């Protein structure tokens, strides 16, 4: 399981725009680099990141080989209600990781 860091404010006022930061450990091997023996290493990247808020998709990103290793993605959303945020990364070689965070909206 890849290690992921999520930064979501624990509390927010209703209607506030909150910033969400995510980071996941992944080599994002672009598939163009030779290894120490000169053989080009096959591509191994995360190509999709989706964030949903209480089951509703709020952010989706298509990633390409040009995204740096350990992809960092920061975006924003409106705090509408208390609940759960789910983060899902999917990629080459069956890579899949899911993280969740809770938020209290008052």
């Amino acid at each position, binding site marked *: 399981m890849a290690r992921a860091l999520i930064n979501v404010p624990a509390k927010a006022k209703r209607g506030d*725009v*909150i910033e969400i930061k995510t980071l996941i450990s992944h080599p994002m091997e672009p598939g163009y*680099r*030779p*290894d120490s023996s000169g053989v080009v290493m096959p591509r191994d990247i995360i190509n999709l990141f989706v964030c949903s808020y209480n089951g509703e998709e709020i952010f989706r990103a298509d990633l*390409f*080989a040009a995204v740096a290793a350990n992809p960092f993605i920061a975006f*924003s*959303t409106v705090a509408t209600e208390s609940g759960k945020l789910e983060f899902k990364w999917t990629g080459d070689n069956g890579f899949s990781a899911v993280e969740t965070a809770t938020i209290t909206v008052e």
Partner: protein
Amino acid sequence: MSNALHATRRRFLVDSAGLIAGIGLVSVAAIEPARATPAMMDAAIKKVVGGAALRKGKVKLDLAPLIENGNTVPLAVSVESPMSAEDYVKAIHVFNEKNPQPNVVSVHIGPRAGKASISTRIRLADTQRVIAIAEMSDGTFWSDEAEVVVTLAACLEGI
């Protein structure tokens, strides 16, 4: 006689130097991996934009003009938009000119984002132009671009 000899010797040296340089070029070209070209970037942009006009403005692409390490380049894009239910940013696309692939990242957002701004870290293989395109809910496209100088290239170097 000696002049003629000199001439041939000089000729020989010049020719062989050219030949060696030629071999060098061929072998460099052979190991050089495929790279995107500005034309490939234009094709990738066309795929997203379609027939719509691409206008400058509204988008702000934040990228340092001089980058020491192309392996992790902080990039931020923000778009001027009220982000209301009627008028919002649907997607933000980032393209580059000279990485092996023209696409960098495409994000899909909506009025629930509250504000249209994202940041991430990208790779840049060469000194080049990076372009960010915003797709609005009314079907218009806006863009901003940045020229960046990269000292250490990413993607293509071995470990």
